């Protein structure tokens, strides 16, 4: 069952590369959140009940409801519809996703460390690589935040791969921090949109020597 979810997660990465509509990005993030929920539900049942419930709530409530809802609000505020002229054609992006997946497969089979659950490690690593790539190819700051969230989801998977469950308090604090970060980033996107009348990155190039 876990394998199904992991493959689904890899598929969302390919969809990210395919789509050009901002609304779709948000949907995909919500779907990723639910997939993470599924992964946790089917695999992490050896830990304490309290921690287990907390991580379930984290994935379903925060990753698949609150964050996408908030991003949607930001999207409406700034009237974002479609990515204008992505700097790299979709075709190449798909190749990059496939290559990053392959790379992570090779890497994780090379590692062969008993401490790592290789199945998670593969997609986690691919997700982080793809998130960085996503930030690089997109020219507006809203998509940059989406890229950051893809990296964050990758990190979440990586922490599952590592298998060491952090103490409850630490987990909670990490979650709050990331959530706060996304909220502040969203507020700044709105500010940029209001001030510059656009959220393209080219607007933000006044500070230089």
């Amino acid at each position: 069952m876990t394998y199904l979810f992991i493959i689904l997660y890899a598929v969302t990465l390919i969809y990210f590369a395919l789509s050009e509509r901002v609304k779709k990005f948000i949907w995909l993030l919500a779907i990723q959140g639910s997939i993470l929920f599924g992964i946790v539900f089917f695999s992490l049942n050896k830990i304490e009940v309290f921690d287990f419930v907390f991580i379930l709530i984290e994935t379903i409530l925060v990753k698949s409801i609150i964050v996408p809802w908030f991003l949607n609000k930001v999207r409406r505020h700034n009237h974002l519809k479609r990515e204008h002229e992505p700097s790299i054609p979709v075709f190449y992006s798909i190749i990059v996703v496939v290559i990053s997946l392959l790379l992570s497969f090779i890497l994780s089979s090379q590692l062969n460390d008993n401490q790592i659950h290789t199945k998670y490690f593969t997609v986690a690593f691919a997700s982080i690589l793809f998130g960085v790539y996503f930030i690089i190819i997109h020219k507006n700051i809203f998509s940059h935040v989406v890229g950051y969230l893809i990296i964050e989801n990758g990190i979440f998977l990586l922490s599952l791969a590592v298998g060491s469950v952090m103490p409850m308090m630490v987990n909670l604090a990490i979650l709050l921090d990331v959530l706060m970060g996304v909220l502040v980033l969203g507020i700044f996107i709105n500010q940029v949109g209001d001030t510059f009348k656009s959220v393209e990155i080219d607007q933000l190039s006044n500070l230089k020597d």
Partner: protein
Amino acid sequence: MFILFVIISITISLSIFFVRNNILTKILSAVFLLMLTGISGYAFIHINEISSHYYKFDDLGVLLAFVLSILSLATFYHSYLYLKRHNFTNKQEAGYYASIIMLITAMMSAYFAENIAVLWISIETTTLFVSILIFFERTKEALEAAWKYLFVSSVGVALAFIGILFLSITASSNGITDLSLLHLIEIASSMSSIWLKMAFLLVLTGYSAKMGLFPLHTVAIDAHTVAPPPISAFISTTLMNVGFLGIYRVFTIVAQTEVLHWAQNVLLIAGVLSVFMSAIQLLKIKHYKRMFAFSSLEHMGIVALGLGIGGIGYYAAILHLVFHSFVKAGLFYQIGQVHRYFKSYWIKDAYGYFKINPVGGLALILGFISILAIPPSGMFVSEFLTFKAMFLTKHYYIAIFILILLTLIIYSFSKNILHLLFNEADEEIEINEIKPNPYESISQFVLFGLVIYLGINPPVFFTDLIDAAIAILN
């Protein structure tokens, strides 16, 4: 005990933010400063004790907490002056104080964090609050800088988190799952070197945004340019110390293994490139605050070099970090004063300052001598020790290259500061008629004086703290 401090600070910050009463804000700020000094003193008395499970009053933490306490006093005073002279609403002022209190609390939490994950959380929190403060003046440039700082730091800190996860992979194969620094150091020698290398590289890259070190230094520099001067003083000093600490903690783990030599080479590369970038940029600098920002890059580079060389280099690095904090903060406070007269930080718009405000000019001269590490400045001692370490360990080429770069830096820095101080106006520039208030420069004189005193005649407890902080490395 420490968690109590955090909770009370958060309460103070929230009450300031929601009540928005000027008098209450001042009283609560004073209470907070007292508490801050109190907790630093408490930590010094209870040194090396675990507090609130996740914190430990270790030597380096105590030292940096003292630096933060001293600079907080000065920063609050200069913030008060800064806010008084601009017409901000009550809401904005309350927001300023609430954010700065949260920022200081997060920095304290980073200094004392014994658990690497807690350290990470604290560092991420500082990013959030400092970006709010960078945006404080609500200009387009401020927005740009705040966005870049927040976004790049967040991604950087996320990278550092991957590094921490890698660290926990190799730790858990040795039976340690709680990421406590003490446990990690204990089992360090049995960690796998490939994971350690990757972890160190990711942590160094990620936290370099906070430390203002190459490669992610650019966002910190943009942030300096637009932030209110008291906040620039923080970004450039105590916040960079937080970034340093993040890297240093992982370095102490690496130092127990055979990866040490490799990690030191990485630090040497980062250090040399930082000084190099700084020297190149300073040659064509047009903005006083950016000039100070690039000078911070240079000094962080020297700190990284100190760590990279080892031996007395370790001692020199910590010493340099502390001295740089005092001097750079003083310079930023003073440049805030300069701004009152010229209404600009651009080099072409501001000159002849010594005639307008001799006391402030004197403070600037003293700061300028101190930051360039010219004797009697304490920074001379720390830089001298760094170079001594380089020659002792036969890093001749690096030492000579850095000396050449430092010469370039001294040239461009002096050119601009002397222009600011003594250049006669060949055309009339607009200068605001304000009666200079010499008392506003007192804090700068105290800070610069402190650096001279600590350099020439360091008290025993000060050197003991540094020695204890680096004991784990030797």
